């Protein structure tokens, strides 16, 4: 029994079958129930944990259909259009779903009907109904009016008006009901009766295409799982080829017998349907998992879905071997795919240039697979040495420097406890901060110098602030190292 604080008292939020037999109902206060049964076991309800458990169940049910939605606080809605025959018919599918949920440790009631609202009403008020196509209305007529799940006042008003079942309501003209109880009631009624249909909003977007395997016996060996994945990859590649497309993002879902679902996302740098390359990516991804894929008591099912696809342009092999460029481009894209599968999307990066004079913002990095565009890096005049350092410290490193003249480059500076004597310098190059970005607390203007010490190390250092500005003493920083 779970209790929750509501209106200043601990009230029953959820109870099990044995508590229900004692006559306890949801909404009673805990003290009230204690008078009935002094030694009741009660714990505090945790709505968030409930929602997470429901979410886990939803992930698990995704093995039956990709379209799963969470229905209110304690229900799941599965769109099984076109899926039932794969599991031996609707009755078998219903049985299997309930069995799965039971293995997670929950009791459930389920129903199959033509519309989501009808299914919800049957599941809650007429357990385990399977309504054949066109039968929704006849069956729904027997449901009590509480099946409408309206506000308490509406339900009371309806029962006072003498309505007991939905059948009673359905006989009345809907305009009268709408005038008295609002449009919402009529719409709900129409939906439960199967006269109006809506689509559910699934938890996950419907994949572009997918292939799956359900195993009659749980699969315990990783090798056989890889074998199954190989067949799935072939199926998917075939499906993609028929569509003239290649996948950019793939998702492999592995359903374990105990209800755990593992998802592996595989992203490629180029749309692909190459079976061998894809299979290699899947293997790399499995190897690279921080939390290894543990068969436990076995895998029930495995699914491979393409969540993003793009048209593939096939390159014609030229007689003069011009298609080689495309080949090496594919090879590079495949290399990036493999690196991403093994090291993660965030760790494989490329440079991206931005049109700004701020040295830090002008060249950043972004994951290789992101679609951010880049500007070209400005070219230097011929004959001039590199103007920007090879590496940049972020944030810049504070150094102690001694300058000969206030506006000149330093003579000496100390960085990481080593004294550098400057033998050559060029500057200053004044870079003002982008005040429109920083707001009122814009950093001071920086005067950059390219300096070289007696050993030949080249540094990019700057002075923050100006000597004329008497309020703050200028500080020196080392910002980068030249090659």
């Amino acid at each position, binding site marked *: 029994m779970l209790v929750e604080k509501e209106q200043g008292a601990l009230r029953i939020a959820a109870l099990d079958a044995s508590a229900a037999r004692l006559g306890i109902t949801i909404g009673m206060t805990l003290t009230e129930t204690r008078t009935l049964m002094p030694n009741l076991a009660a714990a505090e309800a945790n709505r968030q944990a409930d929602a997470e458990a429901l979410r886990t169940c939803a992930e698990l049910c995704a093995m039956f259909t990709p379209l799963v939605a969470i229905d209110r606080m304690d229900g799941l809605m599965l769109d099984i259009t076109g899926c039932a025959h794969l599991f031996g018919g609707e009755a078998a599918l219903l049985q299997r779903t309930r069995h799965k949920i039971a293995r997670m440790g929950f009791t459930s009631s389920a129903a199959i009907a033509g519309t989501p609202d009808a299914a919800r009403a049957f599941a809650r008020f007429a357990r385990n109904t399977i309504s054949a196509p066109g039968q929704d209305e006849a069956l729904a007529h027997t449901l009590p009016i509480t099946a409408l799940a309206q506000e308490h006042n509406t339900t009371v008003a309806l029962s006072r008006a003498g309505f007991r079942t939905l059948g009673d309501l359905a006989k009345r003209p809907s305009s009268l009901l709408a005038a008295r109880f609002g449009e919402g009631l009529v719409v709900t009624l129409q939906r439960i009766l199967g006269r109006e249909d809506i689509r559910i909003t699934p938890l996950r977007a419907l994949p572009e295409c997918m292939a799956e395997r359900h195993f009659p016996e749980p699969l315990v060996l990783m090798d056989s799982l890889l074998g199954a994945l190989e067949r799935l990859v072939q199926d998917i590649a075939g499906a993609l080829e028929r569509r003239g497309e290649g996948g950019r993002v793939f998702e492999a879902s592995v359903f374990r017998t105990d209800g755990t679902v593992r998802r592996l996302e595989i992203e490629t740098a180029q*749309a692909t349907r190459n079976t061998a390359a894809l299979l290699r990516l899947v293997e790399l991804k499995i190897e690279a998992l921080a939390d290894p894929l543990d068969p436990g008591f076995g895998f029930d099912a495995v699914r491979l879905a393409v969540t993003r696809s*793009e048209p593939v342009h096939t390159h014609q092999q030229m007689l003069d071997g011009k298609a080689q460029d495309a080949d*090496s*481009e594919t*090879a*590079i*894209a*495949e*290399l*990036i795919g493999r*690196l991403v599968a*093994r*090291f993660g999307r*965030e*760790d494989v*990066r*490329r*440079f*991206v*240039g931005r049109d700004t004079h701020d*040295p830090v913002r*002008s*060249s*950043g*990095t972004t994951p*290789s*697979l992101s*679609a951010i565009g*880049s500007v*070209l*890096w*400005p*070219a*230097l005049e*011929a004959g001039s*040495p*590199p103007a*920007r*350092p*090879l*590496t*940049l410290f*972020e944030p810049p490193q504070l150094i102690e420097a001694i300058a000969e003249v206030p506006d000149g480059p330093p003579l000496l500076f100390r960085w*990481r406890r080593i004294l550098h004597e400057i*033998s*050559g*310098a*060029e500057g200053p190059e004044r870079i003002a901060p982008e005040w429109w970005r920083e707001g009122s607390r814009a950093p001071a203007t920086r005067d950059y110098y*390219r*300096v*070289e010490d*007696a*050993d*030949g*190390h*080249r540094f990019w250092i700057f002075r923050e602030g100006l000597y004329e500005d008497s309020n703050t003493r200028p500080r020196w920083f080392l910002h*980068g*190292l*030249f*090659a």
Partner: protein
Amino acid sequence: MITHRAIWRQDAPDTAREAGESCADKAWLSLVGRAAMHEFYTTRQIDAAGAGGCALAFTCSLTQGRPLLWVRHDAMDREVGTLHASGISDLGLDPAGMILLRARNTQSALQAALEGARCSSLGAVIVEFWGEASAYDLTASRRLSLAAKASGVPVFLLRSAARPAPSTADTRWQVHAAPSGLRAARAPGDPRFALTLLRARNGQEGLSLYLEWSRDARAFRICEANAATGFGAPPRRTAPASLPRRLVSVSFDRSGTPSALLRQRIG
């Protein structure tokens, strides 16, 4: 889709491309060839940027414009800063033609480098890690050099703050930054590097080179020691004492044949 363009900057002159390729004929440069693994060691942390620049410069002359994979240990960002695309562009390479891999540890850096070395469409692989690395053993280096041989992709392994460990690399260099030829008003010039060959297959150990990288020509120039540019004193930190005491100084004559370039002074 993002394609990795050629590593040459678009504005590279055709003559530069030729110069870059013809450089491979020079005797000393043939030491740093394709289909081989090269190790660049630095003793001081600030030389790591120099070693990176030097590897990039070699890459630029070897890649024939193909993309480059740069694998970098996480610790490098803290020690010598993050790679800066404008700086790479200023050395004459196109940053858009680079794939960067941030490795969490030496193990994954080596795995990534191996993956890259097997991909013959790459121009070069640069792998950089910090400090002593037990994962980089003979087996790991053998894998890398075999992959480089099979695919023809040169692998540059940059190590800072580490003692040279036994490996199967074709060449091993010690790299220092060298004072550049100062320009008017004592402005630093093109980057120069002092390289010492610590180990080579063909037994040219001890060879010392002062190289200047010219972005415009996309080629190295050998600088004469004690030239009037104000530089000439050998780098303060010289090669470790374990080296053979045979010093080779190279006085460069552009028209000379490679064999004439090396005037040996046994000391």
